[in-house]
């Protein structure tokens, strides 16, 4: 058995593989933020056991701690699940960044954060904003450092099938996302209401900060980090809340509003 540890955003995860070659094969293609860091204490350990062969191809069992995740999976599926688990837990245990459940787009070198729970329409609005001219950051996660700057996770956008036709973006967008951390220009807390509507009113920074903390995936694990990074994110940002209807119409109006903030200034 071979144990291999990987780190990202302060999270250390360990995979225990039948042998080194298997470990290399199953961890190939992990997102670039993962680095080898053997010897550090892991917050979770995944055991991968060879369970047999089918037509000469190995099959694996994957165990998360003491919990079996899948049995008898082929290499592709095992690797996909392992990568998915790594990405799942990094947001929960990160110690360097607060991970906010938020869509992220970039305008004039600054980030627009749109926090919200699942099915709030983050992906749809982010996609519409990108089609309207914003840069892509991520459709679901914002990693914010202690200075309040956002690092784009740049994962491929994942639209639900029912809206994918209207708002589809190429998965290759992930490669075009802004690589360096950018400060936050605006935090927009928007709820969906059908119709051609954008009602956006100013929200004070305390109101924006509490929304971010309520949507922070590592807040329970590290409350102090969540609070400090949320406060840093809203510092200097324009914050607003309201309702939005059709994403395409809303996106155009949002960018118009953001552009009028004159984001080229050092402070909004």
């Amino acid at each position: 058995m071979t144990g291999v540890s990987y780190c990202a955003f302060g999270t250390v995860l360990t995979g225990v593989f039948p042998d080194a070659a298997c470990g290399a094969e199953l961890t190939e293609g992990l997102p670039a933020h993962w680095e080898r860091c053997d010897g550090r204490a892991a917050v979770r350990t995944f055991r991968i056991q060879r369970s047999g062969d089918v037509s000469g191809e190995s099959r694996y069992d994957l165990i998360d701690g003491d919990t079996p995740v899948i049995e008898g999976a082929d290499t592709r599926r095992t690797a996909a699940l392992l990568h998915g688990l790594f990405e799942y837990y990094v947001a929960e245990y990160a110690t360097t960044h607060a991970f906010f459940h938020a869509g992220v787009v970039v305008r004039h070198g600054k980030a627009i954060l749109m926090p919200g729970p699942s099915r709030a329409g983050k992906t749809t609005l982010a996609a519409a904003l990108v089609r309207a001219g914003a840069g892509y950051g991520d459709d679901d996660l914002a990693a914010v450092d202690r200075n309040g700057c956002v690092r784009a996770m740049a994962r491929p956008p994942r639209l639900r099938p029912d809206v994918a036709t209207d708002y589809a973006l190429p998965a290759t967008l992930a490669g075009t996302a802004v690589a360096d951390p950018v400060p936050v220009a605006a935090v927009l807390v928007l709820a969906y209401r059908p119709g051609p509507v954008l009602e956006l009113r100013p929200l004070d920074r305390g109101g924006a900060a509490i929304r971010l903390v309520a949507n922070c995936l590592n807040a329970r694990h590290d409350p102090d980090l969540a609070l400090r990074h949320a406060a840093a994110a809203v510092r200097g940002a324009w914050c607003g809340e309201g309702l939005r209807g059709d994403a395409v119409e809303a996106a155009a109006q949002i960018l118009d509003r953001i552009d009028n903030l004159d984001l080229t200034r050092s402070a909004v």
Partner: protein
Amino acid sequence: VSLPKQRDGLFSTSVDDELIIFDPVHNQTHRLHRLARHVWDRCDGSHDRAALIEGLLADAPPGLPEAEAAEIVDATFAGLAEQNLLAEPGATGGRAFSRRAVARTLVASLVASLFVPSRAAAESCPPAADCSEYTNRTCCTADPNCVWLVQICVPNSVNDGG
């Protein structure tokens, strides 16, 4: 509690003049309006209602009427007690704080609270081409084509024996 005291074990940070609090016991985050914060800062177990009103009048912008300050102190106390932010659980203030019903809208504007869901509950569920791509039960069961069996997400047809 005639001498309200902040509960131990809370985390907080300032945002402009306001205070954002995280309560790891109840997994809630709270936002204290700047006037409520003036009250909160003196909730150290040594200030009674009169002292809190006096302190608020000293910290608040000039011209705040005493009756209004008293209302704010009572509403803040009500909000803090309701959200379990004071040392005595379920504290009502007894006779020490005003027995008049505080306006709910005032309480809500002074102490706003939101629940912080667990990682699993907050998880977005990306569309998956294959049920096995779902690694958590929430996402699996949200997909009408899939069903969660023990620790694995499988197609409905498997569960039906088809």
